[in-house]
């Protein structure tokens, strides 16, 4: 995608207050044409509110939303060139599937033949052609969602907004629908903005993800960047699994480097380049389980110039996961960490008794040093 392309949605300084409660605080972000953009965060973080502000179902207390370069302030939901798939799908129960899909077109006063053609086309796109004359109560949850999708897409919106599109489906259907939504987006070409609380959903589907917490945008990045370079403790913890150790003390070393104290790992010297530039609050050391190696003794293999961090512990539980296993290491300084190891390594470890001494180590370069909150001043 061309980065210089102008954004299809531009959110600038949006703040939303409900009474004394601030649901969104000074959110600014751009959504590019043709991308899948995820608004990710725990419940109550304001992601749905932001989606509803874009749709025009809610008004921002401050700030503006522009769609395709046009300021949407004061323009009601029924005049905005975006459409929404609701969490409950909101398929009108008193209308047939075809009537549901035709609802938005009839409002545009198009000729009947054209409406019929477009409805048939939209239903074919979501594989519901045979269900056109059914009533919604004769459909499954997944089928109703397709009706909601067809009903929104038939309006040819500039952006399709989806509020927790997969949360109401059962686990198996959810995986299938993930893929199908991505394919659908590729075939229609319009941007999708997806609200979700499920990080794996966002990682699997989105081109870019905005992580929200308590109404504040914590980080906006590609899924890979979010995973590899989370800006703070919250983002690191929310995306994927990670071992974390609270820093209890900090002493300056020669140059800009510092010695960071933790209860579990002891003191670790880190170069200045690794320390976070922004943010506030206590620091946290973090390392992904797949970066942690375990064995009888730390081995200096191919690691960067930064050296190794190693810690002694005892072997805890080994959880089998198919082609890999998660090994729990009970640390001598208290607490534990988990390491993701290959099948062969796991087999080898299983020969040792639970509780036998073991060492865990990782490259200093693989360890993240995170502030509590990167956005706080």
């Amino acid at each position, binding site marked *: 995608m061309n980065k210089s392309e102008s954004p299809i949605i531009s959110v600038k300084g949006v703040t939303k207050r409900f009474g004394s409660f601030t649901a969104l605080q000074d959110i600014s972000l751009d959504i590019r044409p043709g991308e899948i953009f995820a608004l990710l965060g725990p419940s109550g973080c304001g992601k749905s509110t932001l989606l509803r502000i874009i*749709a*025009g*179902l809610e008004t921002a207390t401050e700030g503006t939303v522009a769609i395709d370069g046009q300021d949407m302030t004061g323009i*009601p*939901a*029924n*005049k905005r060139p975006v*459409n*929404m798939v*609701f*969490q*409950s799908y*909101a398929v*009108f*129960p*008193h209308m047939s599937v075809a009537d549901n899909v035709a*609802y*938005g077109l009839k*409002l*545009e006063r198009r000729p009947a033949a054209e409406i019929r053609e477009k409805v048939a086309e939209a239903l074919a796109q979501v594989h519901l052609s045979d269900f056109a004359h059914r*009533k*919604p*109560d*004769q459909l499954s*949850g997944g089928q109703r969602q397709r009706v*909601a999708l067809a*009903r*929104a897409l038939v*309006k040819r919106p500039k952006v399709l907004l989806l509020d927790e599109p997969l949360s109401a489906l059962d686990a198996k259907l959810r995986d299938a629908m993930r893929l199908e939504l991505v394919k659908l987006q590729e075939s229609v070409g319009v941007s999708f903005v997806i609200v979700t609380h499920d990080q794996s959903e966002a990682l699997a589907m989105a081109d870019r993800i905005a992580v929200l917490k308590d109404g504040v945008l914590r980080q906006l990045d590609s899924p890979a960047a979010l995973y590899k370079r989370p800006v703070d403790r919250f983002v690191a913890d929310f995306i994927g699994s990670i071992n974390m150790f609270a820093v209890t003390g900090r002493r300056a070393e020669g140059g800009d480097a510092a010695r960071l104290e933790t209860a579990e790992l002891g003191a670790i010297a880190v170069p200045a380049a690794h320390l976070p530039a922004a943010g506030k609050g206590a620091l946290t050391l973090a390392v992904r389980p797949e970066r942690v190696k375990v064995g009888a003794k730390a081995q200096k293999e191919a690691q960067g110039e930064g050296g190794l961090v190693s810690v002694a512990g005892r072997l805890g539980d080994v959880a089998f996961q198919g082609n890999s296993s998660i090994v729990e290491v009970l640390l001598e300084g208290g607490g534990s960490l988990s390491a993701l190891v290959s099948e062969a390594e796991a087999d080898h470890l299983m020969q040792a008794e639970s509780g036998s001494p073991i060492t865990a180590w990782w490259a200093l370069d693989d360890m993240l040093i995170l502030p509590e909150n990167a956005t706080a001043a």
Partner: protein
Amino acid sequence: MESYRRNFRAFLAFFTPSFAWLGLFFFVPLGIIWLYSFGETEGLTKIRLTWTLENYKRLLEPEIISLFWRSVWLSVISTAICIVISYPIAMVIATAKAKWKPWLLLVIILPFWTNLLIRTYALLNILGTRGRLNDLLHWLWSAGDRALSMIGLGDYHLLGERFVPVKFLGEPAGVMIGLVYVYLPFAVLPIYASLERLDRSYLEASLDLGASQWRTFRQILLPLSSGGINTAMVITFIPMLGSFLIPDLLGRGQVDMIANVIERQFKSGNDWPFGSALSLFLLYITFILLALQSFHAMRQRKREEARG
């Protein structure tokens, strides 16, 4: 409840009083009325059961048919007015903030706590030719007349030379005002319940798809609250049809409804068999309406259940 077969004695102990009450004071008198309706009066106080159909034939007399017709149209119009007034009220309550809802509902229910007789007498004071409503109309007339004078049209007396009080009592209008006033809460509550249950995202989806507020109201809100409207219609229409006190007091004997004529048969008319036939006929109409309503409600519920 399902184990009542096993604990038959406990079941008896619990339900005998209520069954006895119902049987003694409801089914037995109803049976007597039913028998009366096939009887003939003999002398002043006796009724002989002759299995005659004469009383039912008399239901087809023009006076009685026009009486039923008047009762029906008064009730139909009053019901329609009730629905039209109560729908916006129900909408206001359903969309009010959670902390206001109980208070608003209380305001609707409050009149129930006052005796019907007292409320109806209060209406007499309001609807009379020198009542408060005519005071208000008089004031409006004066204001209108003054306004016309001010723009130089005072000499034409477009609003009449004098204020003529509107007659409500003894007129169908007065009875309808009374019926609407008394039965309005019965209409508000079921409509409120259906609006309260309604998922708001249906309305938002309609707006999102480009529909105007008015269209959303007509094509989404109204059909989806039809269950509440139907219930409201039935539970206001049925008691209106059989109402006695309101036409008696506000109609001043000029606007009789079925119940007034029934009462007359049992008292001044001294024709209990015919009164019984009239009563039963009213009961049958009520049954049919209730059956239609529950049939509709059942279909609605099935649809909702299937929706999950």
